């Protein structure tokens, strides 16, 4: 049973373009939650230590750090603006006191170090406390500077900038399980980087045709396998997923496995290809499965079986008869993401009208919930929602025609260990928790 916990962001309906949330990601421990927005900013929330007295809820998330990750740029050669929108954030596993994350816009990836400072040196001999230099002739005694506590300051500093490697728009970044390398994928190419080296990257996938007029397929997402550091997958706009092994050759143009489900001829339409385009691909934590999201469904694939998914969940099948209108208003091109829970037993994805859906793989039950400020009393249990596809609408159901297609939930994230989820509406971040009894 899911309960409202918190909501972050502006209350008013007039959404500033720069505040539109474009990515959400928990770190490996779940203590930190990062969001990126269209204005190029990253906001990191930190979970406060569990309050032992109030044992019925887990710690709240409060702002920990805010920084401007990317700025708008101008490509003078093409006369085009490069958007500062943060497309993806990926956390590195923590190695020391500082936290590291990769953030990317369309063209440039940056490695950020987030560190805490809670003490500062005091008692310099040659400097006053405010920084002014002392006249050396006034120094009569010497002292050793000491660290004294200060108010916690969280600093973010860019440690690496990985630029000029992508002609097309970066859609994915993924850190390898070796924690030394990572990949970045744009529409036509995938590059492999070393986290320490910024002036070089290796191109490992290139699907650009010699003649651009022959272009019919693009890369939509890519991810490294969670355990095998030589394996990665990438998905395409034609609904295929290719698994590649970097040991096979330097340029992984030939896939090791090709995952594709044959088309259902009874559902064929002019929109079949568009709705088969995969908007997100995520490995399960175990590494045995991967999940893909296309326009209408979520599919779970067993890495050992290429010819069809092992599970398919319909997210909003009632939209199938509305595809032409959704094509007209461009909603059919919306890129929904998906995510696994910590134990790989439940998957979650977003929909329209600020609805999001969860599918329990074991019980085969699914639920539709809404991220709305109407339910914003802490620990209010969320009421399941239902969309009425056709016919008589029952009480409490919402008809397809009443859905607000401007309210879309594209980005969701699940805490790696606990039942806490972060759901991004256009400009608000909702945090929900499973009821703890």
């Amino acid at each position, binding site marked *: 049973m899911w309960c409202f916990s918190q909501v972050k962001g502006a209350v008013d309906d007039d959404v500033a373009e720069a505040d539109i949330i474009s990515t959400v990601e928990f770190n490996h421990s779940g203590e930190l939650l990062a969001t990126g927005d269209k204005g190029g900013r990253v906001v990191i929330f930190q979970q406060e230590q569990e309050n032992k007295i109030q044992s019925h809820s887990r710690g709240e998330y409060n702002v920990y750090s805010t920084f401007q990750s990317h700025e708008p740029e101008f490509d003078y050669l*093409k*006369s*085009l*603006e*490069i*958007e500062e929108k943060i497309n993806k954030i990926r956390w590195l596993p923590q190695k020391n006191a500082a936290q590291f994350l990769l953030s990317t816009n*369309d063209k440039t990836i940056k490695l950020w170090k987030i560190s805490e400072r809670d003490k500062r040196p005091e008692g310099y001999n040659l400097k006053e406390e405010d920084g002014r230099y002392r006249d050396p002739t006034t120094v009569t005694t010497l002292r050793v500077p000491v660290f004294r506590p200060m108010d916690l300051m969280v600093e973010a500093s860019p440690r690496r900038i990985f630029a000029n490697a992508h002609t*097309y*728009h970066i859609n994915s970044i993924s850190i390898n399980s070796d924690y030394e390398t990572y990949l970045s994928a744009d*529409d*036509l190419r995938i590059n492999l980087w070393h986290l320490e080296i910024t002036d070089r990257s290796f191109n490992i996938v290139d699907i650009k045709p010699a003649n*651009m*007029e022959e*272009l*019919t*397929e*693009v890369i*939509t997402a890519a991810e490294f396998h969670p355990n095998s550091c030589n394996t990665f997958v990438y998905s395409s*706009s034609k609904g295929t997923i290719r698994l590649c092994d970097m040991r096979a050759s330097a340029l992984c143009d030939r896939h090791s496995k090709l995952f594709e489900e044959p088309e259902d001829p009874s*559902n*064929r*339409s*002019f*929109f079949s*290809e*568009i709705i088969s*385009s995969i908007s997100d691909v995520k490995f399960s934590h175990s590494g045995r499965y991967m999940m893909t999201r296309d326009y209408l469904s979520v599919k779970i694939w067993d890495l050992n079986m290429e010819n069809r998914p092992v599970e398919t969940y319909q997210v909003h099948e009632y939209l*199938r*008869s*509305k*595809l*032409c*209108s*959704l*094509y*007209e*208003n*461009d909603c059919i*091109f919306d890129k929904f993401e998906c995510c696994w829970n910590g134990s790989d037993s439940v998957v979650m994805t977003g929909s329209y009208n600020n609805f999001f859906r969860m599918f329990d793989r074991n019980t085969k039950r699914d639920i539709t919930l809404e991220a709305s400020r109407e339910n914003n009393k802490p620990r209010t249990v969320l009421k399941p929602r239902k969309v009425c*596809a*056709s*016919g*008589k609408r029952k009480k409490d159901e919402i008809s*397809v*025609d*009443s*859905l607000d*297609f401007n309210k879309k939930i594209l980005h969701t994230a699940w805490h790696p260990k606990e039942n806490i989820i972060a759901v991004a509406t256009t400009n608000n971040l909702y945090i929900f928790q499973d009821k703890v009894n």
Partner: protein
Amino acid sequence: MFARGLKRKCADHEEDMGGALAGFRAVPSYSLQRQSLLDMSLVKLQLCHMLVEPNLCRSVLIANTVRQIQEEMTQDGTWRVAAPQSTGRAPLDRLVSTEILCRSMREQDGVHPAPGMGDDHVLGPGSELSTVTSAQTPRDPQNSVWEMDSPRENRGNFQKSLDQIFETLETRNPSSAEELFSDMDSSYYDLDTVLTGVVSRAEPGPCDGLQGLPPVATPASSSSCKSDLGELDHVMEILVET
């Protein structure tokens, strides 16, 4: 639900009228609907061509859709607009009449001004058209989509424009002609039921099919027709300029 401010006329009636009426409502011809989808797709391709930097995935998907329609129309041998129907409820007539309107206008003016183009940014329409017509085969390039007398040749023109769009995605010549399409009448008919091949379980009410969405503003119909031609002009313009 989708067009701003437009309410589906008969949303309330759907529950009252059962399947009885369904049989009496002839669904608009598939080829007509398919043509509308083609037109919509072409507009989208051009619109995305105008924006800051086109989303390549979206462009590829739309272009593939256009190719699919093109292939199907070629197989059917219907690579032409349907001849004006004598029957018609209002919307069908409207579609047909704009076609006639366009045809007669083209015949009237040798050079007609491309609509909505800001004078500041773009070459004079007269010079464009004459350049275009001289570069093309004797057939008026506008015919390539609207009227297919010679399918193969016009398919070539069409394919060329499609390819040019992709080429220019790489070597983009930005033109701030977004206002070109600001008047576009985008109230396409309800194509859902026919084109997706899926009939929603509710019996089609009187509003499904062509009558689904009333036009936004009737006076805009002629200007929207002009802009439709204008967009093809623009494709040819890219062809010639780059």
